[in-house]
């Protein structure tokens, strides 16, 4: 198992380098990078020392080397608007985003598991059709619009919940609710279809032949096998989650990394966007690695192949 993780780590690092090269090229794609680095107030003289600081006079590979070494020291350059180091700003905003992401991920996973399994085991009953309808609705409606309607209903009309900002638990309800409701359909559909496949299999037929009660058949025999397929999409779901968070944070003006980035894009504050992209890449790659390890735990056959 150890060797496998080592190799996967290597692959992730390669992917990370790939992404950093992509950003490096992108920065220079629009001509002189200092145009991007300069916000409206910086004078020509400031632009010149940015150019020197970035060593733009040196050859391309050398520039890339400087770019990477500064990266490794965690120095993502300074925000053009706020003049503060990017890393600091990201670290400040990260905890808020993490709270939002973990809460909604947890909520949606639990509900999706429950509804997915129930939907699969009671096929074509009112429950199954109801679940399917919510799934289709959830995937159809844009999450920012849903959030706005939720604000209108719960805050403006019913005045139960705050319209935005963080602080008390009440602030959490709407953002987490809308984000979870948006991811829920995708996961639920995956679990339901993988559950249906497993329920058709021979070993489930054998479990029934043994005379096992339905409950045991579903929650012991079927579920564990049914979790293998959705796991492969965990990376994809996580990417959707990050996208969703950025949007929800903007709607609820939640001080997370998402809003920070959107505002940075507004102000053409390139270093922040670049820093966030790299950070997200690291998170995504780690999540993939964790999923692979979890994979081996659930499916013994893979565990044996990999040691």
């Amino acid at each position: 198992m150890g060797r496998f993780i080592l190799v996967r780590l290597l692959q992730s690092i390669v992917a990370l380098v790939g992404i950093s090269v992509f950003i490096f090229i992108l920065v220079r794609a629009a001509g002189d990078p200092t145009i991007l680095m300069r916000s409206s107030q910086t004078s020509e003289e400031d632009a010149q020392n940015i150019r020197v600081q970035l060593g733009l006079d040196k050859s391309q590979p050398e520039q890339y080397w400087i770019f990477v070494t500064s990266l490794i020291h965690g120095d993502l350059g300074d925000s053009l608007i706020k003049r503060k180091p990017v890393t600091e700003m990201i670290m400040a905003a990260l905890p808020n985003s993490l709270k939002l992401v973990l809460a909604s991920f947890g909520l949606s996973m639990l509900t999706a598991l429950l509804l997915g399994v129930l939907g699969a085991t009671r096929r074509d009953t009112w429950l199954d059709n109801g679940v399917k309808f919510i799934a289709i609705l959830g995937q159809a409606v844009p999450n920012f619009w849903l959030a706005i309607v939720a604000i209108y209903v719960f805050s403006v009309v019913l005045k139960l919940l705050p319209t935005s900002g963080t602080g008390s638990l009440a602030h959490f309800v709407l953002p987490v609710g809308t984000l979870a409701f948006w991811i829920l359909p995708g996961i639920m559909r995956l679990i339901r279809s993988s559950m249906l496949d497993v329920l058709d299999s021979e070993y489930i037929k054998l479990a029934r032949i043994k005379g096992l009660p339905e409950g045991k058949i579903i929650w012991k025999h079927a579920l564990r096998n049914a979790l293998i397929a959705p796991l492969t999409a965990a990376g994809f779901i996580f990417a959707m989650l990050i996208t969703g968070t950025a949007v929800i944070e903007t709607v609820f003006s939640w001080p997370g990394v998402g809003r920070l980035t959107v505002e940075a894009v507004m102000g053409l504050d390139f270093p922040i966007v670049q820093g966030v992209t790299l950070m997200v890449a690291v998170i995504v790659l780690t999540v993939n690695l964790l999923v692979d390890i979890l994979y081996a735990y659930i499916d013994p056959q893979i565990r044996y192949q990999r040691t």
Partner: protein
Amino acid sequence: MNKIILQVEDLRTYFFTRKGVVKAVEGVSFHVNEGETFGIVGESGCGKTVTGLSILRLLPEPAGRIVGGKIVLDGTNLLALSKKEMRAFRGRMVSMILQDPMTSLNPVYTIGNQIAESVRLHQNIPDNKVREEVISALRLLKIPAPEMRLRDYPFQMSGGMRQRVVGAIAMSCHPRLLIADEPTTALDATIQAQYIALFKEVQKTTGVAIIFITHDFGVVANMCHRVAVMYSGKIVETAKTREIFEAPKHPYTSALIESVPRLDRKDERLYSIEGQPPSLLNLPPGCRFFPRCDYAMEICGEKEPAEVEIGKDHFVSCWNVS
């Protein structure tokens, strides 16, 4: 070999699909004696597997329904039981082995776990005794080094060994009746012979009655005491195995035996039955083998032949005979 353990009378199982009602099993009757191996042989789609599944009341949903007849196992009519009562029967009184060993076992649980599960379910014995019971089940099926094998996963075993584990699961709660649905079809010839010899021994030691469902006449000859030949949802002939091979009375049975190449002699030209079995959606009136039968008479096309006893334990449904 005389006490009847299972009596099936006029069993009718239909599948209600959008395209219409598929009459998979149409009035099947037979009995199985204690300690006997009763063979059900026929081509694919003749209803032999559906008959087996109907006895366990485990038809593929949503369309499968038993619409008529009685299944009496050791004095109890299984069709009269509630779902809960029937569930208690499964595994304890009657059990089943499926065809493909590669998919019959749950890939993510160990062998020991899957056997212990049915032992704990049906035999109320203290936990420390369960392990012994599991090992004795494995030993019954002659699986080498059972203590070691407990912790193995299915993918670590060959097809033949897995089919033995499925056998161990089925026999772990000492059922009175075992239904084997083509258990050897996916195995190689030598492993198949091994499996059949093994099950003959298991039958001797445990006295379990076996219904052996297959399309392979070689297996029928080696394994079964009595045989029923099925065609398009009905039993056309039932007799002792030797009589079926040496003196088949129904045209389909004899045609089927003649179209199987023999290993002990060089056949010049095999007899081949023309055409295909009728679709179960719109069945012709009269005898179902009528369109393909060489001895077809006018009446065969109109009325279904009744079952006639033409010898000791030898029943045939054909107008030519009665």
